[in-house]
């Protein structure tokens, strides 16, 4: 399983990096979205992969029944997912405005806003 997850994360990273290296700004942003997935999975798998129960405390108990999934990476990723969405929304509007100002989606031509 670890080998499989390593391959998946590596593949998403490769796809994300390739898209970020494109000249189209739309692809750059899609690449960033993919990169977010890959990074989240990286943190997730670094916490140790085990098909366990979620870290939920049953009524009457004081701590979750062992074994339970590590809650710390999950908390981190939850924050990351939400923030990356905020950034994504901001970026998309920014790109749309930049496109209006510059008149192109080719990053190499983003040299001046006075066209």
């Amino acid at each position, binding site marked *: 399983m670890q080998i499989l997850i390593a391959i998946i994360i590596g593949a998403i990273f490769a796809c994300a990096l390739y898209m970020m290296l494109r000249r189209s700004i739309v692809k750059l942003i899609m690449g960033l979205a993919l990169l977010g997935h890959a990074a989240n999975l990286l943190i997730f798998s670094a916490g140790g992969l085990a098909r366990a129960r979620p870290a939920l405390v049953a009524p009457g108990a004081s701590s979750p029944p062992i074994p339970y999934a590590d809650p710390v990476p999950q908390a981190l990723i939850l924050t990351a*997912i939400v923030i990356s969405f905020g950034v994504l929304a901001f970026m998309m509007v920014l790109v749309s405005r930049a496109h209006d100002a510059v008149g192109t989606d080719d990053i190499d031509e983003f040299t001046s806003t006075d066209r």
Partner: protein
Amino acid sequence: MTLLAVVISGFLLAIGAPLVARVLGRALPGVPSLAGWVLAALPAAIAVWLVMQVSSVGHGETISVVYPWVPGLGIDLAFMLDGLSLLFALLISGIGALIFIYAGGYMAGHPHQGRLYAFLLFFMGSMLGVVLASNVLTLFVFWELTSISSYLLIGFDHRRAAARAAALQALLVTGLGGLAMLAGLLLMGQVAGTYSISEMLASPEVFRSHALYVPIVILVVLGCFTKSAQFPFHFWLPGAMEAPTPISAYLHSSTMVKAGIYLLARMTPLLGGTELWQWLLTGAGAVTMVVGAVLAMRESYLKRLLAYSTVSALGIITMGLGIGTTGAIEGAIAFLLAHAFYKGSLFMVAGAIDHETGEKNVDKLSGLRASMPLLAIVALLAGASLAGLVPFAGFVAKEMVLEGTLHASELGPAAPALLTGALLLAAALLFVVAGLVTVKPFFGGARPTPKKAHEPPVSLLLGPLVLAGLGVVIVFVPGVLADPLIGPAASVVVGEALHTHFALWHGVTLALGLSAAALLAGLGLYVARGKWFGLMSRFAWVDRVSPSAVYAGTLRFVGELAVSQTRLLQNGKLRDYLITILLTTILIVGYPLVAMVGAPSFERLAPLHWFDVAIAGLILLSSIAAVTSGSRLMAIIALGLAGLGVTMFYVIYAAPDLALTQISIEALSVVLFVLVFRRLPDFRSLSTARSKVRDALIACAGGAMMGALVLMATSFASDKSVSRELAERSYPEGHGRNVVNVILVDFRALDTMGEITVLALAALGVYSLLKMRRRPEVGAEAAGLEVGRGAGVGPAVGSGEVSA
């Protein structure tokens, strides 16, 4: 305590000095030089206190104070007053007091007079710190402060490009030397196990036998040579003549340029006594002495003439320290004292001439004795000392150094003759300088000057008069200033109690005869100067290979290198930046991963299920589709599918909160992508096939590295103590059954607060971008914007709800 006050008071008064100058200028506008007189009180008070210590320090007592600064690193704010420090501190404060009075007259009416006082006080405090410091790191801090204050002072007239360039040159040359010195001092600290100079002096032999001795000497000496303008670093000193004269008289004749000398003297008991030390100092000193004197012959501006003669004098002192015999060291210290008196005086005379006539070129000055007789007398008194005439301090000091060179046989059989010959040549040329600076302007027929020449005011006369007078007094009454200062200072350098006598008459000696011969030669050269000065212009080619040309070339090269490197690295192409960052990361993360950690262990592999493979296949295929698709819509859908795969992964691996959040966000993202990007042009193929292959290779390398990182990370058992503790405290303390939620809203609530802030800012940004007034020519697209607005704000607000 007083010692700390001596060092700190200059810095404190510097803060208030501009205010003092302004208030006094307003209160008594009739006396523009008043502020100088008032501010001179501080250095004068310091000098008086130091004089009161002369008798006790002269008997070998040392006053020292230590304040812990960074105790963990062995750095103390430590000061001590011994014979060597006392001599230098007295010169700094005593001449400082005269300089403040002089500056008051020289800068009278200048709008930035207060600033000059502040810089001068700043400098004085730094300089006192250097000579009083008893911890090498304290010393270095103040050493650098002198460089900074000298930068400010040389560039005081900052509207002139020449002044700025000279200030920068002095800063770069002395600053680079200072860095080398810091390295040397740190090595010394490593070797000795302490940064305290007094503790180092307790066991000085550790340095000479240590393997690091040679680098230590070279680094420390580099700092001293740059500061004290030794060849080949001498060129910044004449350049520094761009500064107003009070500054040249203070920094560049009597104090700052002597900081290097001070440190050489201070280090002699620790590092001296070896062939390396002797040859370095004697060689550099002798070359500097001759080069300075010869180069002076090409100058016709008063201050530059004096600057080159200062270079020569600094060479003489360094050479004396290098020879290292008791007599030579006594001679060097005596020469330092005599030089401080006459050179400080001569600089102030040169400034007074410039101030009262408006002319600084010696060739155009003549017959001033009629209009400024007092200044002429002062100039002749100081000039006689520079020329080395009987009975002036310059003569006595020169005799002492001559005795030193004549007995320098320790350096080799030819050394006495060579060094003595070089010293006599320099002495003869310095005689010519003295004639040019103090005889030529005042005698002969009077010539018209830009300003009507008249006697300078008291403030401009007092300083040079006192210093020139001292040059005579110490010869006839050596028991008052010369003997009590020179002996104890030389004792510190030599390491045994000395009772030096600054005697005018040593009997008929070889030194006396040689000295007389040098004076006659100098007189001949001065009288016949019309015949041979012209020859100096034939050596203009020297300027092209001189150290200052090397400096200018280096500075230009560094500038060009910076420009070309910036063009290469900061080329404005996002992709190139990304590639640089990626390759660097791949190298510095990937290399240790492969080379140091080794292969991951596969012992704790979790079993593989069919749905794992199915989800992996979904993520993999949809990611590749997002990359390769030529249609925007297809790419967006593929991206959404990949996100869905990730969500399912979270479901399987027991992360329900993540799965819920991810799926909502994924849905919103797809909607957002479609709404916004449908207004943008369709995908085109912009890159060449070659760059696509290159990018693919880089991306695959990056992916492979991240995959390897995951393998590594998952093959080690991670520490679960934090997770366990949080899980156990979740219900009892956080009153929540979902541990992930409790972490977010309770244990790490501040992080979540930050997250909400980021979202709020993003929402604000989106809103203001959409509200931004559009320019008329793109108004046609306004219809598209309406959709974008609704889409942009909605999800951003919605995301806040998701997180809550």
